[in-house]
């Protein structure tokens, strides 16, 4: 493999990791602060993509679509928190899994009912539609570079929010002792709604951005939800930093594994066996990574305990 191709694949890994981070950050915030397993996070991602496709088609503006995606996902998140999730904090994780799984089914069929079963059209804005030439002569889609930049900006913003602001202090305090911060006069239920809406907005943003280069269809959130869970388990549940590192690790391993493993096997078996075995192993690569990390750090890279 040439250096150029390798570098391009590294960029692809970075981009896929950044996108995963947007999903995983919301998931890990919600789990860390509220102790809630939210399987419906993938549905919020889907809601973002559908809102973006609808608004972009009606208005012709991709940016408006992005804004609508975040607003719709945040609104759906807040509504879900108020109506359903609020009743689940005191329950055990199995109840949460059951209830949020039910939400997946309800939201998927609700979306199908509203939009039909066929995928929606959402394209990248004309400004970012072609490739750009990077130093070294790599041709890389402009839109994917934009995803990397947006993702990095969100990561910086989140670290600032959690580390430097009052609400960030409350979120971190809520993570370690929710009774105590309630006793100190923080309105914990409002805080929870806000955190849930924030996590949902991030998922909606991810859904809209990814929807433009993938397919906007019912059920699009579930595959990425599984990856996002792998990310937060690797990174350590509740840690934003862990989510970032975990997402990048998974992004790189997933992308490079798919490319390199068949090549590695090609060195010592015939081509068709190498392709079959390599592809099969590449699908497992991230789970192997997760298993190895959990052997050495049972609570994840940045987890406590």
């Amino acid at each position, binding site marked *: *493999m*040439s250096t*150029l*191709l390798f570098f*391009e*694949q590294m960029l*692809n890994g970075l*981009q*896929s990791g950044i996108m995963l981070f947007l999903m995983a950050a919301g998931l890990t915030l919600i789990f860390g602060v509220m102790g809630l397993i939210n399987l419906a996070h993938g549905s919020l991602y889907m809601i973002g993509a559908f809102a973006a496709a609808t608004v972009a088609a009606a208005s012709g503006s991709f940016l408006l679509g992005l804004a609508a995606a975040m607003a719709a996902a945040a609104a759906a998140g807040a509504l879900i928190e108020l109506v359903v999730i609020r009743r689940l904090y005191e329950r055990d994780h199995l109840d949460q899994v059951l209830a949020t799984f039910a939400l997946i*089914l309800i939201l*998927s*069929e609700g979306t*199908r009912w509203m939009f039909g*079963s*066929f*995928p*929606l*059209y959402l*394209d*990248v804005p004309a400004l970012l*539609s*072609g*490739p750009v030439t990077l130093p070294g002569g790599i*041709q890389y*889609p*402009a*839109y*994917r570079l934009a995803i990397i930049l947006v993702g990095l900006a969100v990561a910086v913003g989140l670290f600032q929010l959690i580390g430097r602001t009052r609400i960030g202090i409350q979120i971190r305090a809520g993570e370690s002792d929710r009774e105590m911060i309630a006793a100190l006069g923080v309105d914990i239920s409002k805080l929870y709604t806000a955190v849930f809406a924030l996590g949902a907005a991030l998922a909606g943003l991810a859904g809209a951005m*990814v929807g*433009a*280069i*993938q*397919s*906007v*269809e*019912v*059920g*699009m959130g579930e*595959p*990425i939800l599984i990856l996002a869970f792998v990310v937060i388990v690797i990174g350590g549940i509740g840690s934003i930093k862990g989510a970032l590192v975990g997402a990048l690790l998974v992004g790189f391993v997933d*992308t*490079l594994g*798919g*490319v390199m493993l*068949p090549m590695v096997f090609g060195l010592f078996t015939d*081509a*068709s066996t190498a*392709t*079959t075995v390599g*592809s*099969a192993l*590449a*699908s497992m690569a991230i789970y192997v990574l997760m298993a190895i990390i959990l052997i050495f750090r049972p609570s994840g890279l940045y987890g406590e305990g």
Partner: protein
Amino acid sequence: MKLKSVLMAACMTALAPLALADGLKVGMITTLSGGGAGLGIDVRDGFLLAAKMAGADDLEIVVEDDQRKPDVAVQLADKLIQSEKVDVLTGIIWSNLALAVVPAATAQGKFYLSPNAGPSPLAGKGCHQNYFNVSWQNDAFSEAAGAYLSEEGVGKVFLMAPNYPAGQDMMAGFKRFFKGDVTEEVYTKLGQQDYAAEIAQIRASDADQVYFFLPGGMGISFMKQFAASGVEKPVMGPAFSFDQGILGAIGEAALGVKNTSHWSKDLDVPGNADFVAGFQQEYGRLPSLYAAQGFDTANLLISAMGKADVSDADGFRAALKAADYQSVRGDFEFGDNHHPIQNIYMREVVKEGDVVTNKLIGTAATGHTDAYGADCKM
């Protein structure tokens, strides 16, 4: 998601139960929810339209949703056979689901008509006298594409498909008829949505042509990403990546792409124009090839019902084998392994007004049959 709709194609009159005495009950297991639901819905709608247009009020249809899950499909088949007592099963979209359901169903003496999947084991060693494939053997479109590209003098091809039975079948079929070199052969994860890594490989490859099979949402993602990547190599695929249900979502990124299909909405054969018009009128959208397959499956079944009663299994089987019905694909007959012998056409994606759709541009293979018939001992 447990969308359970029991549909009586028979007119819902009080007389219907009487008409059922000599009728036939068909159980349709298809994908109506989750990813890929568009395919199942098209097959179902095409099937129901045919029953309606033929006025087949002695045909009772039970529709179930397999959610694209093999375990669910197996349970549904058991339920349909044991408690619904259906005579004929049909509907499955995905090869892995067909492989899970068909052998057990045919072993219990039920007929199975495949309106979509055509995995190679069921065409060869695992063929069964009660299994009729009304769509295609999985390799067919790719075999035709391989032959077409050889004819065009294309030398080097990059192959890509998901790593599951149909993906492997398609690529094997392509290689069987393609005389040039296959420079790379890449198998992706089933359901993969991001193809940045594969597109980088395509860019770096010295192939002149990309041939890929990525049905449903996978094809949408790949085509959009490929168009944005600036890679100039021409792409071709079987019709599954360019059917009417997904062209709208790909948009102009698909324009000019050639794809192989046994059917096209502008195919000039008797009955096709009526089907296209009837489908548009009934459902308000253009039919896809899946809808055409559902339509043909129902018409085949109805033609057999007119000749023999399903309780006479040998007679009914012979009636199915005769394929004495007007296919919207034109000439259609069954080979000895009960798989179709039919023409495969070349289509090109074009824009008609505001609608992105397919146009017929030529024939890729005439009277095409599959490569597995020799292994089939019925």
